[in-house]
């Protein structure tokens, strides 16, 4: 069998050359990473230094730093950038606060046989379309809508469309991305550690504070990378429930149409913010649990 022996020879040759094997394995994904992923980021950054024909909106490839100068000089961009960071931070904090007890329940308290089902249940919102969920919230938050009706007896009202609504909806949308890493982190937490803490005299709350929280913190940070960057990049929720407010994503979206270089310059803002955030998170060691 000549083909068989050729195949064997090839396999043998590959076995003796681990570098070649690795190269063959990674060639396609690395090409994708370099061309499609880093390449487009590079083009984005490059195009931020171009300008547009003011009438036709066509991109004119002449080198200028005007776009960045505009970003730094016009107060509206600073306001919107800070507002976006604030929203992303608020969403992240809300998600962490909501996700921790839920994940504690699904990973530690619930019967082990039920846990997979609970995790699936928590993921079900991800099966629905983003737009459907966002429009559902538009109805929930509407004047005289379900939220108004539910809060009515307490003498409260729906926050209506606006930043509060945006934070609420984004926190809802990204919650599974926070719960999952925390759930995984807690599941990996050896049960013996909780026993050991109780054994050494700690009551439940003390164990949560001194053992569970410090150990699950990297998972929270990992989840926050999702919630923070997803919030920072979002522009649809704002359009649907944001009322008259706009975030950095809206500015990018609005300018992609007419002033691509400015949109690209604006686009570097969340990239820089997320990079800084990742650096900060890396120091906490959380990237190891991503």
């Amino acid at each position: 069998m000549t083909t068989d022996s050729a195949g064997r020879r090839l396999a043998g040759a590959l076995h003796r050359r681990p570098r070649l094997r690795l190269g063959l394995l990674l060639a396609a994904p690395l090409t994708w990473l370099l061309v499609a992923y880093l390449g487009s980021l590079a083009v984005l950054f490059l195009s931020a230094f171009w300008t547009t024909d003011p009438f036709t909106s066509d991109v004119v490839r002449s080198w200028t730093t005007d776009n960045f100068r505009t970003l730094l000089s016009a107060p509206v961009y600073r306001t919107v950038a800070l507002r976006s960071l604030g929203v992303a931070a608020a969403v992240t904090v809300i998600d962490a606060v909501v996700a921790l007890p839920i994940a504690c329940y699904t990973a530690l308290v619930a019967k082990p046989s039920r846990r997979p089902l609970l995790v699936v249940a928590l993921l079900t919102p991800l099966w629905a379309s983003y737009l459907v969920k966002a429009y559902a919230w538009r109805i929930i938050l509407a004047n005289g809508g379900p939220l108004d009706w539910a809060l009515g007896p307490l003498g409260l009202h729906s926050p209506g469309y606006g930043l509060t609504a945006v934070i609420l909806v984004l926190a809802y949308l990204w919650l599974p991305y926070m719960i999952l890493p925390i759930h995984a982190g807690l599941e990996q937490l050896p049960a013996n550690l909780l026993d050991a803490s109780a054994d050494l005299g700690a009551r439940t709350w003390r164990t949560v504070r001194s053992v569970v929280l410090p150990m699950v913190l990297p998972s929270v940070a990992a989840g926050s990378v999702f919630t923070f960057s997803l919030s920072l990049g979002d522009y649809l929720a704002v359009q649907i429930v944001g009322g008259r407010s706009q975030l950095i994503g809206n500015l990018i979206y609005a300018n992609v149409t007419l002033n691509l270089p400015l949109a690209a310059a604006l686009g570097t803002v969340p990239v820089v913010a997320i990079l800084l955030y990742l650096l900060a998170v890396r120091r906490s060691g959380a990237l190891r649990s991503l």
Partner: protein
Amino acid sequence: MAADDGTAVRLTGLRKAFGATEAVAGVDLEVRDGEFFAMLGPSGSGKTTVLRIIAGFEEPTAGTVELAGREVTRLAPFERDVNTVFQDYALFPHMTVEQNIAYGLKIRKVPKAERRERAHAALSSVRLDGYERRRPAQLSGGQRQRVALARALVNRPRVLLLDEPLGALDLKLREEMQVELKQLQRSVGITFVFVTHDQQEALTMSDRIAVFNHGRIEQVGTPAEIYERPATPFVAGFVGTSNLTNGFSVRPEKIRILAEGSPAESEHDEAAGTVAEVVYLGESTRFIVDLDSGGRLTALRQNLDADATEVAAYRGRRVLLRWHRRHNFAVVQST
């Protein structure tokens, strides 16, 4: 509530079911103050569950747990004066060695200076001076084991529970730690309740042993009682190698191997047979002999001056096995 009568742990009618399976099926046991007590049994025999019930990690389905005369059956772990050394040590990975050891003291609001002092002393008692700032990940298995020990002992509990504490160590380290643990127990004077599946370990270290099987205790006694006079075939089989023939039994090392036709001795029993298998163990050799009367006996002989080739030549040879009658022990068929 019973008074403190020198009993460290008293278990009465203890049962624990997990769903349909009964892990503990009626256990009564008393551990005396200051005792080094072993709970010995194969895996799944219920010994670890009993330990976890004493610690408070599990609630029994029925029965009571008393610690020093006080009933604690329904109390949480943090309400009991016991501490545990876990099989995998369960050290807090995000804390330093010192923070691990001082954790229990901190919870009990021991002042900082005293905390430090006691942690250092505890670390010193397990011969780990200077390791305060290390993280558990930076320690070897044996070192972690000692930190776990120090973390439990620093609280000066009434009873220290140890769940297979040496199970994860290699043989040499385990033998060292066996001696060390025993010395430590003598010096601190705390009651140790110790779970193991290793009969050698139980025999070496314990004052008394409870042998577990299928959620029940088969026998409680000193190592010598358990070894020399096993109460049930299970104990006889689990502790040491057992030779079970016609209702009596004899330990392999008690049997001498003689040439056929050796002159008879008084007060001795004997049996003739053929060597079926020879197992060379280095320090000794195990001979498995098919008896002419039916059945099989294992005899152990120290390799005083025999070497491997010599003993191998025994295979197929006719031999006479002889032992003193006082080594016979009867075993009651367990129900």
